[in-house]
């Protein structure tokens, strides 16, 4: 996304006041004479977009936490809370120490960025058109999002500290290296013309691949696939899971809207607004599709799959939320709803235990959203999109698998059978999420 912004802000800075030669697709704006903002106001609005979008994306960590806490059994609820607040914090520290300069310290067309700690430096701020710290903050909360995806899939059976070690590697190395290939203008950007506006592949599929590798190494929860059948393990609080989904949906306006990376001109403002509408439409379509499909397939509406439908629609539109028309945005989101409805029982058939449905929603819908970009954006090609999906997929999955296996054979990944039965809250934390009801 950064390359996109640089081109635009530079174009603006160099231009005389008057007509703004925008490359953004804003329909009605073309050919109109538009008032030019001052450099200062552009700077302030660009920076504000990063800060405000970053704040709502940060709140997505709460959304993931509530979604996950609602879909685990109450004996593991406090542990999932610990994991969520810890993974956000580990991500913040790792992006400071390693991540940011790995993403943006890369040479054009390169394969790996710089190993350097990030620090306050506003020397190029005026040239870039935004405060450097605001960009760091915005990128950091994105990295945390990818880590959140992993915790839900592996809930109820993974030990706390091995999980957090994986999060440190994911947020400090795996995510930044693959993100640099596109957003740092590395080889995927220059050689393949790969397009991923806000991260269907770079953020969501990356989290999804890491989660899938973890689920394969870790195995299913005890009793989940025993007796030749799929045994449901109902979550402890569907209202909390629903609240979490609403929070994620809200956060997505920052996630996609903020990825316009500029709000300092009328054209950018119109683009951000258009992104909000498309993002919303895709989620609505994902929900309605999952609602109807679960009614048809199971005879009853399945709330938690409907919640996944919202996420699936949002992930699908994330690769390109700007160029789609309204019908296209609805179609992209609706297919996300179809994918989650069919992929959730499919994973069960393969005995892959994904507690919250993160693999269908983030990985599968992320792939769909990335591949469908050329439908609405002629700058992207199917081949380039496929290259990005495959190259990032192979890299993230292979490295994640190696890290999970290394953790399994050193520290051990999985809680003991006894601890799993007792619940990780009592076993690992020595407390209960809802102590007043526990002894009733």
């Amino acid at each position, binding site marked *: 996304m950064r390359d996109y912004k640089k081109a635009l802000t530079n174009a603006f800075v160099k231009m005389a006041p008057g007509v703004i030669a925008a490359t953004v697709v804003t329909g009605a704006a073309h050919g109109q004479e538009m008032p030019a903002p001052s450099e200062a106001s552009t700077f302030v609005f660009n920076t504000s977009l990063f800060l405000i979008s970053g704040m709502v994306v940060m709140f997505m960590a709460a959304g993931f936490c509530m979604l996950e806490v609602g879909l685990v059994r109450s004996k593991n609820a406090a542990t999932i809370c610990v994991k969520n607040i810890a993974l956000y914090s580990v991500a913040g520290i790792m992006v400071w120490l390693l991540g940011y300069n790995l993403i943006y310290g890369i040479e054009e067309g390169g394969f790996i960025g710089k190993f350097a700690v990030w620090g306050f430096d506003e020397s190029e701020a005026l040239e870039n058109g935004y405060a450097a710290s605001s960009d760091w903050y915005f990128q950091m909360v994105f990295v945390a999002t990818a880590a959140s995806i992993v915790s839900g899939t592996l809930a109820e059976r993974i030990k706390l500290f091995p999980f957090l070690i994986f999060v440190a590697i994911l947020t400090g190395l795996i995510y930044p290296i693959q993100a640099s290939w596109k957003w740092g203008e590395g080889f995927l950007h220059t050689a393949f013309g790969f397009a991923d506006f806000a991260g269907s592949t770079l953020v969501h599929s990356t989290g999804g691949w890491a989660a899938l590798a973890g689920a394969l190494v870790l195995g299913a929860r005890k009793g989940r696939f025993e007796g030749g059948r799929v045994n*449901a*393990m*109902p979550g402890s609080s569907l209202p909390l899971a629903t609240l979490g989904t609403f929070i994620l949906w809200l956060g997505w306006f920052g996630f996609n809207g903020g990825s316009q990376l500029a709000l300092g001109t009328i054209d950018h403002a119109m683009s951000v607004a258009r992104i909000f509408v498309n993002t919303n439409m895709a989620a609505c379509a994902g929900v309605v599709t999952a609602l109807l499909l679960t009614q048809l397939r199971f*005879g009853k509406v399945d709330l938690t799959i409907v919640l996944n439908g919202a996420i699936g629609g949002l992930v699908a539109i994330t690769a390109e939320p700007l160029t789609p028309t309204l019908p296209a945005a609805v179609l992209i989101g609706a297919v996300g709803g179809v994918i989650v409805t069919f992929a959730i029982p499919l994973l069960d058939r393969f005995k892959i235990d994904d507690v919250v449905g993160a693999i269908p929603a983030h990985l599968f819908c992320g792939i769909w959203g990335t591949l469908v970009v050329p439908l609405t954006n002629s700058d992207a090609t199917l081949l380039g999109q496929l290259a990005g999906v495959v190259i990032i997929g192979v890299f993230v999955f292979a490295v994640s698998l190696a890290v999970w296996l290394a953790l399994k054979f050193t520290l051990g990944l999985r809680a003991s059978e006894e601890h799993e039965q007792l619940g990780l809250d009592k076993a690992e934390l020595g407390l209960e999420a809802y102590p007043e009801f526990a002894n009733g």
Partner: protein
Amino acid sequence: MKFIIAVIKPQKLDDVRKALTDLGVEGMTVTEVKGFGRQKGHTEVYRGAEYNVDFMPKVKLEIAVAADRVAPTIDAIQKAAQTGRIGDGKVFVLGLEEIVRVRTGETGDAAL
């Protein structure tokens, strides 16, 4: 004196309480319980997978009554709790040796 234990459907609790207070029953103890009888359990669907709920949620009432009030009390519970469908519950009647009112020390029927 008799001790009556009734296990009924949760949604019938209000009807039963009203029928019993209309009858002049002075007190009862209510507990949320789970169990099964002829109804067995039922199946629910979660994330596309069916699962059995083996123990159905019920409400248990405990009521102490004087000997001459036993028949109308049982009758009131049976009528108020009945839906006619499986799982309506049961009424158990036990002998009751002694009652003590903690506040005054009264015993027997006077403590009811």
